[in-house]
């Protein structure tokens, strides 16, 4: 239970919603591949994977931040799973379900990236594109902070 995991959330066919995938591609050679998961939505089937982790970082596009800006913070624990949708959970809900199922809560962080255009297949808006390296840097810092207990540490950038 000492793994660190990075989960990118988003649909690459929905414009800025695919920003997480682009960030992870940028980090392709620097983070061990089995520590990266890309999903279009969070589902409960990810709970067994989270249960094996010490810490997890979610990356997702956000509508409540100005386009291009980003913010990293802790995912709250102990939240009520208020909207039990089968195909879509928030990071906090997924963490809570993991706790309920496995009696183990990984420390979870969320990197939110302000997005604006969701209707351009395979295309990220310019303001996000120019910042991809900065987002990736943020992810790398998070990983560096946590990797010291990870059995497969990050490769030097």
């Amino acid at each position: 239970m000492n793994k660190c995991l990075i989960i990118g959330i988003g649909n690459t066919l929905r414009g800025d919603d695919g920003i997480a995938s682009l960030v992870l591609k940028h980090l392709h050679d620097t983070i061990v591949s089995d520590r990266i998961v890309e999903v279009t939505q969070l589902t409960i089937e990810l709970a067994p994977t989270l249960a094996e982790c010490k810490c997890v970082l979610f990356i997702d596009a956000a509508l409540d931040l100005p386009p291009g800006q980003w913010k990293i913070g802790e995912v709250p624990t102990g939240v009520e799973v208020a909207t039990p949708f089968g195909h879509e959970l928030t990071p906090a809900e997924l963490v809570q379900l993991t706790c309920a199922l496995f009696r183990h809560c990984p420390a979870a962080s969320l990197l939110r990236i302000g997005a604006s255009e969701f209707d351009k297949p395979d295309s990220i808006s310019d303001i996000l594109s120019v910042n991809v390296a900065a987002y990736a840097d943020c992810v790398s810092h998070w990983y560096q902070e946590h990797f010291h207990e990870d059995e497969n540490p990050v490769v030097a950038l």
Partner: protein
Amino acid sequence: MTRTITIDPITRIEGHARISLQLNESGMVEHAYFHTTQYRGFEKFCEGRPYYEMPALMARSCGICPVAHLIAGAKACDEILAVKIPYTAMVLRRLMNYAQIIQSHALCFFYLSSPDFIFGFDGDPATRNIAGLAAKNPELALDGIRLRQFGQQIIELLGGKRIHPAWIVAGGVSEPLTAAHREQIRSKLPEIKEIALRTLATFKPILNSFPAEIETFGNFPSLFMGLVDDKGQLEHYDGKLRVVDSIGNVITHGLASTQYAEIIAEAVEPWTFMKFPFYKPMGYPAGMYRVGPAARLNVVTRCGTPLADAELDEFRATCGAPALSAYHNHWARLIEILFCVERLERKLAEDQVLDKHVRAGAAPNSLEGIGVAEAPRGTIIHHYFVDDQGVMKGANMIIATGHNNLAMNRSILQVARSFVDGERLNEGMLNRVEAVIRAYDPCLSCSTHAAGKMPIRIDLLTHRRELLCSLVR
């Protein structure tokens, strides 16, 4: 100059339902209507497309059981090509279908239905879902997650992704199975089989805790239809159509699935976009039949695998042969999961499963193709017509939810008559209507994405069609 484009009706949106209950002059429920309020249009917008796009195109009609549509579509295209696909391709298609049945049945049983069994049909809706189940019975919830995950992983290993894998194609499949992936699947089979058996052992004792629901959840005489193999055993990929009546007499035996039109016709009603297939020899609506897990167990002679056959004996001894209550679909689903695990074990042990020859190639040789397969929810039929260049001229799809349409309407009427007092709707009533629909596991429930809650509106109407009250979720 501005131009206005109107799209009406809106197509391809996900399903929501409306139910109307109409009272008679005495205040008793006389009619029940299950309205599918959106038009999907798949049969129309495929016209003009090349035939080989059809499997992947039609698979988009469902996010839960796309594999069944891929199989039925590919089988129809095999007929258009007039080819016999390689044995290994057939086996690999079967493997993916077993995986799909496991994951879909797990979704229906554990995520959608088991909260009713654990919390009761009148339980608090706020906790009567998979999250509530995880809190109260994490072991059960975890078993469901592992089963579903297992099925999805097989689909991904074979087809590259979990939903809408474009791997099942006209003439076979696009890629062979690797030895590493075979071992990856086989290594998990013992655990999965144990979960299937454990769930059966957990479910059976609580089965009879709901006598009123067993009695009223679609518990009436009807016909049942499904595919069977040459020995009359459970068959999900190929085989022939068998129909039994409500006392178990086989009334259609060994009909080639491509001859489905000899026994199935379709009716329409003005109040819903869903068609009403019926058993042609008995006419409409008397020819009501059902498909799906319980129907499949009702039509087969045996399952054909040891553990599933043992469960089938118990199922028949307890539920009757045929089992008439739609409630018994839940038990049948668990038996089918076990059957699929046993079949996966058997098929993966074959040396030929790793053969690299997995696709036959040809140009269109026939102007028509029919593909039939068993989806988790029941038999699906794809019927395609092409021109001599292989361009689609038309298509007809009869899907499992459609086959069950008459029975679902009758089931809602039965539940309403048992649980509606004539003037008022209540939450328990709403949940039981949901639950009886859910017992059929229609595409409606999966496409609406809510675990434990369907977006349903129920209207209670007087005999003059005046609205008495509505319940909306």
